[in-house]
Structure formats: C-alpha cells, structure tokens
C-alpha cells in the first residue's frame, strides 16, 4: 500500500487548513455561494437534495483497516452513521455539516486520505481492478500504475481547468473488472510477444447522455512513456476539447468529432516532442512505487484444513458462497473474497459505521489489514487463506455480508437517485430493493446465472445503466417516475452499450418488466448460455414481443 511521503502529507494538511479558512469566510458571509462553490467542489463537497455530500477519494479502491475505522468514526461523529460506496470506488457521506467539514478533512488527512479532485472539471479518483495484486489472471499489478497516475494527476498545474471531468481506469488483467472501456482513458496492461509488459491505451469511453466505448489509441506503450503519453493526450484535450457546451465537453466528443486517426496524429506529434523529457519514468521511480505494493507475507502453500472440505459438503450455504463470491488467487493456498453489499434489504453500496468497524477487524484477522472497494459497490478481501474461508464466512454471515449473489441479478449497481441526488429524475434505490425482493430466492438467482443489472436515476448514468445486461434509467414523465429499460450492455472486455427496448414503464410496472425479460431469457437460452450471450445471439425481438404484446401499450 502506498504511504504518503512528507511532501504528500504536507500538501494534504495545507489543503485542509486552506479549506478551513474558506469555510470560515463563507460562514461569516465574507464570500458568496458563487465564489465558494468552486472551492468546496475542489474539496469534494457538494450540496445535494437534503444536505451537503462529501465524496472521499479512495485511490484505486484500496483501504487499510485503519482507514476504514476512521471512515466509521467520521460517519458516526459527523454524519448519520453510514457511508455509501460509489462506482468510482469512493465513499460518500450524505449528511456532513459545512461547519464541520474541515474537521472531517483533518481527520482524513491523519490516515492519508482526502477529498481533493472528487468533483469539478479535474482528474477524478483513479480506479483499478479490485483484484489487483491478487488475481490469478493478472499480468501485472495495476495499482502501481494507478498510483503513478494519481501522483501525476493530483493538482497538476496545467490541467486544473479541464473542459470537463476526467476519469482514468487501469486493469492489469485481460478480464476487465474495472470497466476501462467506459473511461475517458482506459489502460490495459499487455505482455508483448518478446515478454515486455506495456500498456494498451484506450480513449473516449464514457457513459452519461452520450455513451461511447473507448477506442484503442495505441496498442502498446512502453512503461517508461506512460506519463508523457498521458500528458500529450491531456494537452490535446485541454486545447481542443469543447468549452462552449458542457454536454459536449468530454473527451469522447472530441474523439467523435475529430475521428480517432486525426486525434491520434495530434497526440503522437505532441508526444514525440516531450516523450524523452522529464516525464519519462526512471526505472528507479517505478521500482520505488512497485515496492509499496509488495505482496503481503503469504504463508507457504498448505492444503485447506482437513475439516474444511467436509464442512463445505455439509453446508450448502457456505458452498454457494465459495462458488459465487470467492475468486481464484494467484498465490496457491489463498483466495479472493467478495463481500456482498447487496443482500436483501440493503441499500447497494451502503455500510453502517458498526459494519465498517467489524469489516476492518475481519480484514485484520483474515486479509493482512487491507480491503478493496469495487466499482460495482461491493468490498473485497484480496488475500484470504483458503483454510480461513469457513471462519471468515461465519463471521461475515453474522454481518449479513455473505449473500452469494456476485454478478447475479440482485448484485445491482445503483446510484443514489432521487432519494439523495439533486440531478436525479427518479428514485433508484427503491427499485433496486424491489428487484432484490422479487428475486430473493437464491436458487432462482443461481439458475438465472450471471445477469448484471444497473440502475441510474438520470441520464448522467452514475449507475452505469448503459453497461448493464439489463439497464434501468429513471425518467420524469409529467412529474411521475418512469423507467426506461436497455438490454445488452456490458462493461467487460467485450464492452457494449445497452439498447433501449421500448417505451418506459411506470414504477408499478417496471419490476414485472424485469421479470418478463428474465422469463424470456430462461425460455430461449441454450444450455450454459448466459443472459448476455442469449441476447447477443438472438437480439431484442423475443424480449420486445413479450414486453410489448400490443404496440406501445406502455407508452408514456
């Protein structure tokens, strides 16, 4: 885990004191809201529907147990005893007071955390594969590169006023768990035929009102050139990205308007000017960062305890959990454990302060005192001894964090929606709750298999609905909540954008519509075929026919 050096710490501490002064002046009426708003946003503080909302950055989703306990303490002391993990691997507090926010930031700084650049037209929290450093299919640990990018992009003086927000994701595995193709820049580690490891650079992906899949800008970039290449990309975007219309200001629009070939030429020309300059990464610096992500002290490979296998056979619930929520680790004898925050009755991504404390304790006991936040709003213990799976499952079960539903229909990505967000048109969380209730039979979920359902309360698509196998978008129809359904989206390595299936459904009808879609899939699927594979094989026709037996019956 990367530890702040003296410079990092001073920068964050000074920023807290700057914000403390800005808040004091705002509360005293010395500066107006118009003057203050950009200052608070630079520190991750929004004013939402009910109250302020503080978005705390969690670089590449990695937390220590100490940091999680601090988040628990802050949420208890300054908020309402819970936090919400987001699709950018951040944590949002929904009820902080402006007058107490500087104290919150000061407490965060003590555990090397902050909220800088979690809002505004700047680089946002750099995200990565939640299995980084542990995945069996990993080429290299993506956190090393996410951290190097984080350092480069934090308070970068040339890019402090970008046309629009800017999101970067990194994966070190061919199996994309970080949705890199839906980021402004997506980075995929590759191994060349000669064994050299470098990066594929994707550009122009994004969701929102104009969803686009990132295109390959460069197939292979040597490691030492990562920052100079990113610098060249950002320079061209900073110069040429539109500033006249916020809806056309993301880099994806520049890619669309210029074309990938023309943009590539501009970027490569710029890069050739700077690539051997100060941004060329010295191997010593790469090594320094790499050391910060050294593997924990794994025990020598040992067979699972003799009783584990027997108890597993006697315990179908444990067996289901191992099969669904536990992933293969690259270290023999270890496993990756997913903690589902999507159990029945839970708000997707929410964790109470008490749960944070308990999870922190369990991470100390079972996973070297660290954990990960996933963009799908779950948590991960990355390094668990296989022999410890049973006692960990027993402990997590008492916290109701073992629902074996990873990547199933109830493992829903869900934005805060109209319950919290000032931009939303409709509620998201209650719809997620109703779907979870409707499909609460785990045997049924397991029979349905992988089915990723994602819900957004507005077209800004924080709930990634475009990338859902089933996507649900809340819309406002004359003051009523309606829900538009898309099918066939996917955020993985074969990314696709969901297609709108037809007119939107009322809040009363949308759960039945999901039921109809699932029933249709179960009828048409071939043995072993996932929902997405069935949809890609057959297309929308059978779903549409079942959803709309009479033309436009659900038109609103």
């Amino acid at each position: 885990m990367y530890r702040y050096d003296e410079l990092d710490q001073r920068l964050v501490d000074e920023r807290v004191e700057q914000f403390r002064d800005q808040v004091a002046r705002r509360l005293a009426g010395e500066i107006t809201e118009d003057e203050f708003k950009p200052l608070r946003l630079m520190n991750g503080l929004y004013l939402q529907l009910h109250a302020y909302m503080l978005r705390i950055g969690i670089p590449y989703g990695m937390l220590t147990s100490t940091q999680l306990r601090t988040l628990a303490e802050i949420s208890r002391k300054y908020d309402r005893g819970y936090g919400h993990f987001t699709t950018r691997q951040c944590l949002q507090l929904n009820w902080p007071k402006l007058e107490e926010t500087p104290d919150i930031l000061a407490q965060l700084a003590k555990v090397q955390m902050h909220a800088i650049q979690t809002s505004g037209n700047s680089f946002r929290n750099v995200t990565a594969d939640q299995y980084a450093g542990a995945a069996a299919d990993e080429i290299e640990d993506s956190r090393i590169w996410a951290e190097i990018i984080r350092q480069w992009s934090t308070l970068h003086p040339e890019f402090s006023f970008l046309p629009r927000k800017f999101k970067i994701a990194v994966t070190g595995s061919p199996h994309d768990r970080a949705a890199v193709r839906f980021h402004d820049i997506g980075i995929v580690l590759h191994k060349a035929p000669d064994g050299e490891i470098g990066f594929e650079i994707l550009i122009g992906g994004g969701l929102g009102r104009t969803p686009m899949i990132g295109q390959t800008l460069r197939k292979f970039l040597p490691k030492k050139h990562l920052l100079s290449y990113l610098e060249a990309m950002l320079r061209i975007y900073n110069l040429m990205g539109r500033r006249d219309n916020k809806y056309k200001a993301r880099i994806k629009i520049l890619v669309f308007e210029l074309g990938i070939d023309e943009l590539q030429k501009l970027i490569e020309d710029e890069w050739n000017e700077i690539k051997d300059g100060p941004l060329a990464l010295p191997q010593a610096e790469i090594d320094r960062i790499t050391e910060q992500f050294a593997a924990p002290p794994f025990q020598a490979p040992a067979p699972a305890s003799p009783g584990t296998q027997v108890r597993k056979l006697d315990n179908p619930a444990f067996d289901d959990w191992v099969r669904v929520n536990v992933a293969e680790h690259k270290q023999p004898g270890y496993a990756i454990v997913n903690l589902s925050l999507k159990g029945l009755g839970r708000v997707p991504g929410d964790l109470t302060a008490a749960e944070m404390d308990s999870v922190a304790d369990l991470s100390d006991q079972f996973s070297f005192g660290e954990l990960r936040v996933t963009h799908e709003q779950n948590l991960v213990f990355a390094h668990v001894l296989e022999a410890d799976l049973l006692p960990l499952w027993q402990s997590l079960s008492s916290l109701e964090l073992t629902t074996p539903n990873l990547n199933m229909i109830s493992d829903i990505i869900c934005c805060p929606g109209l319950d919290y967000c000032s931009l939303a048109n409709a509620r998201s969380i209650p719809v997620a709750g109703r779907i979870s209730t409707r499909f609460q039979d785990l045997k049924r979920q397991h029979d349905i298999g992988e089915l990723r359902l994602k819900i957004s309360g507005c077209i800004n698509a924080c709930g990634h609905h475009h990338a859902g196998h089933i996507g649900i978008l809340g819309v406002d129809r004359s003051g009523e909540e309606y829900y538009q359904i898309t099918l066939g989206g996917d955020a993985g390595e074969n990314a696709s954008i969901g297609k709108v299936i037809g007119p939107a459904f009322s809040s009363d009808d949308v759960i039945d519509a999901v039921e109809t879609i699932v029933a249709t899939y179960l009828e048409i699927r071939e043995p072993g075929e996932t929902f997405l594979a069935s949809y890609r094989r057959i297309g929308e026709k059978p779903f549409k026919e079942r959803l709309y037996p009479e033309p436009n019956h659900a038109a609103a």
Partner: protein
Amino acid sequence: MTEEEQVALKIFTANRLSDGIVVFLCGDGSWTEAPDASGVIGSTDMETRMKAVADAAEEAAIVVGPYPIEVSNEGGDVRPLSLRESIRAYGPTTHPEFAKQSAVANKGY
C-alpha cells in the same frame, strides 16, 4: 388594500448554509425544517415580499439557493406537490431511520 392576484399556493425553501439541511421560510422571516410551520404564500404580492426576505437570508449567509415550491394546504397540513420536493421535505425514502422524516412527521410519498 388592492385585490391581489391569486396564485398557486407556495412556500419558499432553501438549504441552511451551516449544515445544508432543507428549510422552509416562515411568515416571520425565520426558517423551519417543517413545511407545516412555513409561511404559505397565496398571492403574487406576498410571493414578492417573501422572495425579498429569502434573498436577504441568502445575502446574510443563513441559507443557500432559496426558491419557491408549490404546495397543498389542507387545514394547515402543508405538503409539497412534487415528488422531488416531497422527498426533500421528508426523505430520503430509504434509510428512514437516518432521515429527517423520523424527526419531523412521516408524510409518506
């Protein structure tokens, strides 16, 4: 007193600067968290006067972003008409144990 033009019933709402909590403007110029206790506006003249009070409160760094919302008023039971404003007033509809609906009145949605 001239006959005032009648308008839809309204109240002024804003977020309190210090903690961001949703508040409503009372007839005496103070702010309350309960819509029932707010000053219901029934005329354009009154709306103009209340807007001036709300704007002054923003200028004085008491509230942020005041604006009028339409309400119903059944015997003093003042409720926002739109879903968005109902959720602002009483929500969120999830986490009722954490939300202000437990501290004010549960009006439903």
